[in-house]
């Protein structure tokens, strides 16, 4: 299945991109997505193993199952206000 993966702020700068399509097997979780990203090596290894993650605009647990077409954002520590 295809997961639209978004990066912001320091993650976006680190990876040089704000968005990646990631292909994952059915049954993959948020945590599997992060592992798949880190396995790409290079700058991706600097991503935290357990970043805050939002699936379809909502903060979500690492164990949550993903579905084809989900929009998953890796959220660096926030600093609004």
């Amino acid at each position, binding site marked *: 299945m295809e997961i639209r993966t978004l990066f*912001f702020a320091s993650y976006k700068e680190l990876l040089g991109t704000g968005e990646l399509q990631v292909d994952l097997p059915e049954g993959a979780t948020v945590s599997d997505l992060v592992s798949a990203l880190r396995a790409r090596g290079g700058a991706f290894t600097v991503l935290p193993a357990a970043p805050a993650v939002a699936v379809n*605009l909502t903060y979500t647990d690492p164990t949550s199952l993903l579905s084809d077409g989900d929009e998953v954002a890796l959220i660096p*520590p926030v*600093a*609004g206000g």
Partner: protein
Amino acid sequence: MFSAIVREPIEPAYVLTLIGADQDGASLLFLGVVRDHNAGRSVGGMRYDTYEEMAAEVLSEIVDEAARSAGTDRIATIHRTGELEVGEVSVAIAVSSPHRAQAYDASRYIIEEIKKRLPVWKKERYSDGAEEWVEGRTPGAPDVAPKADGS
């Protein structure tokens, strides 16, 4: 209730027009402003990066929670994104309510929750030309004591 993420400058007087009702005896307007220093360094400006669709949802949820808890729906909250200069308003929170405790409680709740979970990031531009992401808080992490460099 009103909440929005905007790219244009925030006008405090306009935000006040979004609240207020004849039944309300108290109005409170909080403004977050880009200041000229942080953690001992001289700051020239700030770039806000925002996950806009999600921030709009989260901000609306925060305002809903404050409204339910404080018992007033006269709340308007606007957060800006993009490039800001020193002195510009980054966030405005306006609340009106029959009694003042409700307005103070709702206002404080909203700004604290914004800092905990609104998907917004900021990069400081220092006077010496360097830039750095402001250290943030991991959403969902347990509360820690307020940091000395938070606005």
